[in-house]
């Protein structure tokens, strides 16, 4: 349970890190390390060189504005989770981060790192996709933005090119008349979810259903968002919630493993779809009421 030997660099400037990464594309970037270090310890991966970016102060920021929330590659899950303005602007961040591992892991792990780890069992890749966020990557060639829809191309695989370091992510603010909810089911608190989902639900001005989008965890190989709006032409009731679960399953690929059978995961997807849409609807109504009375 010890990692294989590697060489180590700890730059204090982003330009140094980018140059080091360009010089050795086989190197790996170390931010929080809460996924990478176990993989190295279990020898599921070996790296020739580790570039530790924890000394690069400019990557450690969280900025919440009316447009949305922008956070750097060293923003820890715990910091983003506790950020009051970020929570006000885009409440999905706080709701989903509550489910990311345990508090102890969140103290070290970074949200950007979790996104580029691109595990479809992770919460934050799905959240970035659901919210229509973007990732900014940098290399010695310059910077570019990658939309979440273009970012996740396979299990643990992203569209980052050789030599590119993820430096920050952005999620837009929750629009007016919208609500959110997030829930998941895991064998143990803080463990990987057997199934989970986040929902963003929009209301029309008179309180009808304008949009329902759901992002699912652990039931596909890459983060997936399903538009369930068409299931709710006449509002939300028991039968439309059942229909939404079935509609979602058409696009999900729950697989069986040692933790849960495929059938059980599908059943969790049905149950959670109804539960989380109901919660998001209540959240949207509460926010609409606040907006109207404010």
């Amino acid at each position, binding site marked *: 349970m010890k990692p294989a030997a*590697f060489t180590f660099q*700890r730059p204090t400037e982003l330009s140094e890190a980018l140059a080091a990464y360009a010089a050795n594309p086989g190197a790996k970037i170390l931010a929080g390390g809460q996924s990478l270090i176990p993989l190295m310890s279990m020898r599921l991966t070996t790296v020739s060189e580790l570039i530790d970016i*924890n000394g690069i102060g400019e990557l450690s920021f969280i900025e919440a504005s009316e447009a949305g929330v922008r956070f750097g590659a060293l923003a820890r899950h715990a910091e983003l989770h506790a950020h009051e303005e970020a929570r006000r602007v885009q409440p999905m961040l706080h709701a989903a981060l509550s489910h990311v591992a*345990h508090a102890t892991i969140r103290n070290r792990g970074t949200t950007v790192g979790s996104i580029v780890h691109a595990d479809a069992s992770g919460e934050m890749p799905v959240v970035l996709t659901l919210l229509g966020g973007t990732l900014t990557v940098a290399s010695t060639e310059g910077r570019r933005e990658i939309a979440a829809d273009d970012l996740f191309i396979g299990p643990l695989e992203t569209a980052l090119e050789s030599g590119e370091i993820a430096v920050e992510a952005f999620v837009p603010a929750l629009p007016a008349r919208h609500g959110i909810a997030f829930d998941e089911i895991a064998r143990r608190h803080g463990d990987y979810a057997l199934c989970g989902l986040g929902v963003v639900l929009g209301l029309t001005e008179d309180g009808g259903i304008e949009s329902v989008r759901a992002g699912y965890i652990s039931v596909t190989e890459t983060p997936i968002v399903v538009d369930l709006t068409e299931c709710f032409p006449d509002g939300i009731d028991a039968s439309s919630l059942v229909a939404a679960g079935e509609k979602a399953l058409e696009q999900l690929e729950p697989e069986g493993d040692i933790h849960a059978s495929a059938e059980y995961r599908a059943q969790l997807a049905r149950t959670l779809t109804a539960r989380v849409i109901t919660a998001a609807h209540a959240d949207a109504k509460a926010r609409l009421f606040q907006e109207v009375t404010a």
Partner: protein
Amino acid sequence: MTMSPTTAEPVETIRLRVNGVTHEAQVPPRRLLSDALRHDLGLTGTHVGCEHGVCGACTILVDGQPMRSCLMFAVSAQDYELTTVEGLTRPDGSLGPVQQAFKDCHGLQCGFCTPGFITTITAGIAENPDPDRAEARDMISGNLCRCTGYQNIVASVLRAAEIQREDAQNGDGEEQGR
């Protein structure tokens, strides 16, 4: 960079600040912080269980925040103030509030997981000085114990918070929870 005499692997000289004392050690980059504490510094209070971040036995405080020492490399830990279970006694060497609470409430049996619980709870009651039972359970949810069934550990959390509040009233709690 020099070579380790035993493994012919390059080593670096690092400085780790642990429990208020600066230590110097020669380690290869792959040395886990948990191993550096135990093997290089001889601080064997920190225990190593699963070594991949699940069990919580190796939890230490990094600038006061609980983190897994098996999920950090020693070379990455040089900028922080580290606190291990050895650093959680009172200044006179007697048991600190969380340690005393575990003794009072029989919060341990074999004791292997205990250092991780002590550090986690120290940070937990610093943040929430008056937890209820549900909050106490949540506080320790990232730590595994295979002996106790957790009942007495939850009781220890509540007792530790009580001792800490008594300390605060008596004005002698400033040294704790660094």
